[in-house]
């Protein structure tokens, strides 16, 4: 049914820490590895060893360069998968009812046997979270590893999405974002987690933690109010102007 539930009992989702992500793409690989052989159709590749390889992925990592007004540019790695939106536009446009949002945990899923492969849900998603599989002709998307998180055949520590389980930097967190006391909600609260493209009105469940301010080598670190850096006077530059041989060389070259 493509009518969205009024509310869901839980809001399971991911919190992605852009400060911590090192851009290793391990989550991309583990996602593809798990999901190509479990829920639904495999994630096919076309021409994988040829000159123009392409394939279906449920999770991709972008990298952005951000240039502040002053100071050095920053490189930020940016993993992106389905955000399991509360007002998921991909669900309501589906003509067949293949796309749905679960009442019990808020996960957005595709029932692949009902999917006609019209692609309209991918058109409606602003995040590029849905990809049509070129071999199967059905829409693929992140399931939040629904076949892991409730899977009692797996050891307890493995009952989380493959991307979270594999992340070597601890940049991905999984939990109930509908519960204000959950670890993920606390983390979002503490770090000022944000929604992507909030103006699109999708109300994403997944949150992104913005990068922390970078320290700068060319200026002293920001001191918390009231703190005194006892070393600061000792570390002051001893000479602002060049002296000795360098001073002479500087002056000599100036005169040429």
């Amino acid at each position: 049914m493509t009518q969205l539930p009024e509310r869901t009992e839980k809001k399971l989702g991911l919190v992605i820490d852009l400060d911590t992500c090192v851009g290793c793409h391990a989550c991309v690989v583990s996602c593809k590895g798990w999901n190509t052989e479990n829920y639904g159709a495999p994630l096919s590749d076309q021409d994988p060893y040829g000159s123009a390889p392409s394939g279906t992925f449920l999770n991709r990592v972008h990298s952005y360069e951000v240039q502040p007004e002053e100071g050095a540019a920053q490189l930020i790695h940016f993993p992106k998968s389905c955000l399991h939106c509360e007002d998921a536009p991909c669900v309501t446009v589906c003509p067949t009812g293949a796309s749905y949002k679960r009442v019990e945990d808020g996960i957005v899923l595709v029932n692949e046997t009902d999917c006609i492969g019209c692609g309209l849900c991918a058109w409606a998603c602003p995040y590029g979270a849905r990809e049509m599989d070129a071999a199967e002709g059905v829409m693929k998307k992140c399931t939040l590893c629904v076949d892991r998180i409730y899977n009692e055949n797996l050891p307890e520590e493995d009952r989380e999405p493959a991307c979270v389980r594999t992340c070597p930097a601890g940049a991905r967190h999984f939990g109930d974002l509908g519960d204000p006391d959950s670890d993920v909600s606390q983390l979002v609260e503490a770090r000022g987690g944000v929604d992507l493209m909030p103006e699109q009105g999708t109300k994403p469940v997944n949150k992104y933690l913005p990068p922390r301010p970078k320290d700068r080598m060319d200026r002293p670190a920001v001191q918390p109010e009231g703190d005194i850096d006892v070393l600061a006077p000792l570390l002051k530059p001893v000479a602002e102007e060049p002296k000795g041989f360098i001073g002479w060389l500087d002056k000599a070259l100036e005169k040429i």
Partner: protein
Amino acid sequence: MHPAPSVIIFTTLSGLGFGLLVWLGLGRPDVTGWMAFAFFAIAYALAVGGLMASTFHLGHPERAMKAFTQWRTSWLSREAWLSVMALIVMALYGAGLVFLGTPWTALGWLGAALSLLTVYSTSMIYGQLTTVPRWKTPLTPALMAAIALAGGALLAGQAPAALILLPVAAVLQVLWWVRGDMALSRSGTDMASATQLGDIGAVRAFEPPHTGTNYLLREFVHVVGRKHSIKLRVIALVLGYVLPVLLLLAPFTHLVAFLAVASHLAGIAASRWLFFAEAEHVVGLYYGKR
């Protein structure tokens, strides 16, 4: 957006076919017997032909019947219902005209309304998408309805109506283009909102997720044809609207009427190609493209 031929053919032909059905339902032209049969055959060939073309872009056309289930939320499902209802009602109305020589006026009006609603539902499949700011405007259904009604009038031989509706559609077309060119920048969605990194500084896409292409880039980031957009807009305006009006003002012959319809169809196909090729999907921003 990728300008898929199946979708361009579908919206162009079906729009014209349902536009003609609107006029036939209104009893213009007032025809019966074999004349009525000829008009209805053309309308059904266009409307049904277009609908058939649309199934070519489905991954699983054999499951198309399932598309009738979600009319509560989905414009695509509503379009499926409305098109089938319009075709059934107009078939009954047409049968009355062709075989009994009787115009069941009320049925015709119902069929005309359903045909117009079908065009509206098609336009709303695009007009509802917040992800494509160029499409997300009431001008989209207004333009598609005006084109269908103008083309239908042309095909139905309703010259006085066509001489009003073609210029109206042309004005809407130009308004749609002018608004559309500013739509993405006015939408408030840009790389800063997409990445939420704008507070730090200017965001630039440094490295895409993969060196190769993917479904998203093929489907949503079509930039190849945009460099010819001005030329194509002129072609669409001249062939789609200006030339048919001039031909209508010339003394009537069947050849002139045929040329007017052919020119209109070619112009609308060019306009519809631009409709897709120029449309910027916001997902392109994640790739530093639009």
